[in-house]
């Protein structure tokens, strides 16, 4: 049962992480007061479709909502929309919104998310220059994409490439400007980068690697961009997808330890034991000193679940390997584990067929997979990592070996109850 002293939990941020805290607390029988403060005017919603089906107009807004409006009063959740928290008063145990309203807490969860970076150039606030984080961003971007015109994407990461894919499917001309010599370089290996470069080029996207933006052209409205090489590209829309920064300002101002994210321990507690942080804004510090900040649905859910378990006084939730997916055109990328710093990789299958996986190894041990239209390999590696089954590079060098053969016959699954 919930710790007796925790009568009320207040959550700042109604995204994936904040909502997960709510769902997990109620599922675990927490009967205290839950206050959920979101700074947008929408019901809590999922973000992944914003750069995919929703952007293309294939999914109505209602279907982005995690729960219908009736859920919140039915479950005794005090949901406040357009409630933007500007200050934490730790001595009074309240958070304060921009219009001066105070909400008290026994335990506070900061699930404040992250904010897209903008390029520090004159003209980056011109009409038609967009970022993509929320529903409103996606609706504005879609509005532009439905008109004739050219899209210039700044940044060849997940967001930029998913938007490029959606825009091509809507019939727009698209250029992608990537500063580094390959796309998705922050998250994957050159094998996968090369595959995606080729995929986009085959779909008619003009991808320019090792290129930068030095100017945004136009008066009120963007009409083009100037590149580092001096060339100018016409554009009716510019999407800036160059990463995010964690929203840690209210935490830092309240004296909580932050370092490119709000620092939290294994229990997702900040330097104030009454305050937790979850999702994109949280940087977990592991006992060995390494730190990790994830920007993913899995990370948000995992944090939310851990915090709820902790608040409810339940056993610690076992670690689950990070995983992620990206949909571009008819290609699904699924990743499990973290490939960062890998020492060796193995390609299973032929990238030329459009179905393949890349396995990553560190110190001879399997640490991650990138699976491209290859869900079987993804699922097998995800299970192997989850069960902490040691797999060496030598063991799986034979391309005919099915990875699922390395799993025990009966495997423990995620309980649904």
């Amino acid at each position, binding site marked *: 049962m919930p710790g007796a002293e925790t009568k009320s939990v207040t959550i700042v941020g109604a995204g994936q992480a904040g909502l997960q805290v709510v769902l997990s607390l109620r*599922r675990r029988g927490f009967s205290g007061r839950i206050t959920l403060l979101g700074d947008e005017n929408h019901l809590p919603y*999922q973000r*992944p*479709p914003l750069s*995919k089906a929703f952007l293309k107009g294939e999914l109505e807004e209602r*279907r982005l909502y*995690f*729960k*219908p409006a009736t*859920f919140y009063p039915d479950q005794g959740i005090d949901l406040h929309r357009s409630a933007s928290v500007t200050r934490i008063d730790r001595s009074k145990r309240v958070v304060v919104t921009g219009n001066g309203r105070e909400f008290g807490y026994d335990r506070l969860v900061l699930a404040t998310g992250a904010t897209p970076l903008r390029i520090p150039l004159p003209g980056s606030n011109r009409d038609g220059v967009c970022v993509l984080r929320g529903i409103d961003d996606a609706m504005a971007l879609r509005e532009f994409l439905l008109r004739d015109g050219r899209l210039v994407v700044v940044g060849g990461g997940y967001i930029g490439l998913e938007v490029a894919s959606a825009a091509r499917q809507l019939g727009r001309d698209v250029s992608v400007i990537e500063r580094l010599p390959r796309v998705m370089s922050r998250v994957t290996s050159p094998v996968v980068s090369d595959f995606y470069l080729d995929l986009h080029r085959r779909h008619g996207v003009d991808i320019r690697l090792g290129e930068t933006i030095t100017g945004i052209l136009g008066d009120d409205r963007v009409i083009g961009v100037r590149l580092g090489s001096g060339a100018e590209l016409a554009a009716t829309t510019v999407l800036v997808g160059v990463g995010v920064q964690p929203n840690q300002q209210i935490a830092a101002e309240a004296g909580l330890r932050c370092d490119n994210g709000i620092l939290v321990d294994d229990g997702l507690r900040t330097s104030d034991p009454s305050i937790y942080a979850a999702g994109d804004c949280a940087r977990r510090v592991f006992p060995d000193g390494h730190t990790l900040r994830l920007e993913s*649905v*899995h990370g948000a*859910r995992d944090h939310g679940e851990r915090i709820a378990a902790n608040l409810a006084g339940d056993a610690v939730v076992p670690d689950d390997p990070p*995983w992620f*997916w990206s*949909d571009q055109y008819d290609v*699904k990328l*699924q990743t499990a584990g973290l490939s960062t710093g890998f020492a060796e990789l193995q390609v299973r299958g032929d990238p030329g067929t459009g179905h393949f996986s890349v396995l990553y190894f560190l110190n001879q041990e399997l640490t991650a997979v990138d699976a491209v*239209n*290859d*869900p*079987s390999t993804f*699922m*097998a590696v995800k*299970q192997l990592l989850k069960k902490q089954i040691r797999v060496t590079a030598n063991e799986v060098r034979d391309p005919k070996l099915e990875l*699922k053969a390395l*799993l025990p016959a009966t*495997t*423990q*699954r*995620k*309980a*649904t*109850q």
Partner: protein
Amino acid sequence: MTKIVFIDYTGHETEVEATDGDSVMETALNNNIDGVVAECGGACACATCHVFVDDAFHTLTGEPDDMEDSMLDLATDRTERSRLSCQIQVRPELDGLRVTTPKFQG
């Protein structure tokens, strides 16, 4: 509106009204059916919305496509009635659809 009956692994039944065009997975989440996790929110990327479709509806709901079939490959207790509920769209012909949720997802 189309009626769908969710049956949990203990046999407990919950009948709900579904909106045509939604997926069976979304119907489950909107009605707080605990047996469906749906970690990815319906992208056919996580296999945590596994259900067993009642025999009477097997033909109407159809077979999984290649992607879904592979995702189900490692699902617990997979049978020929297994589907990912995010891939079944609610429509009037499915009125009365009965699906059973497994004990474990993922």
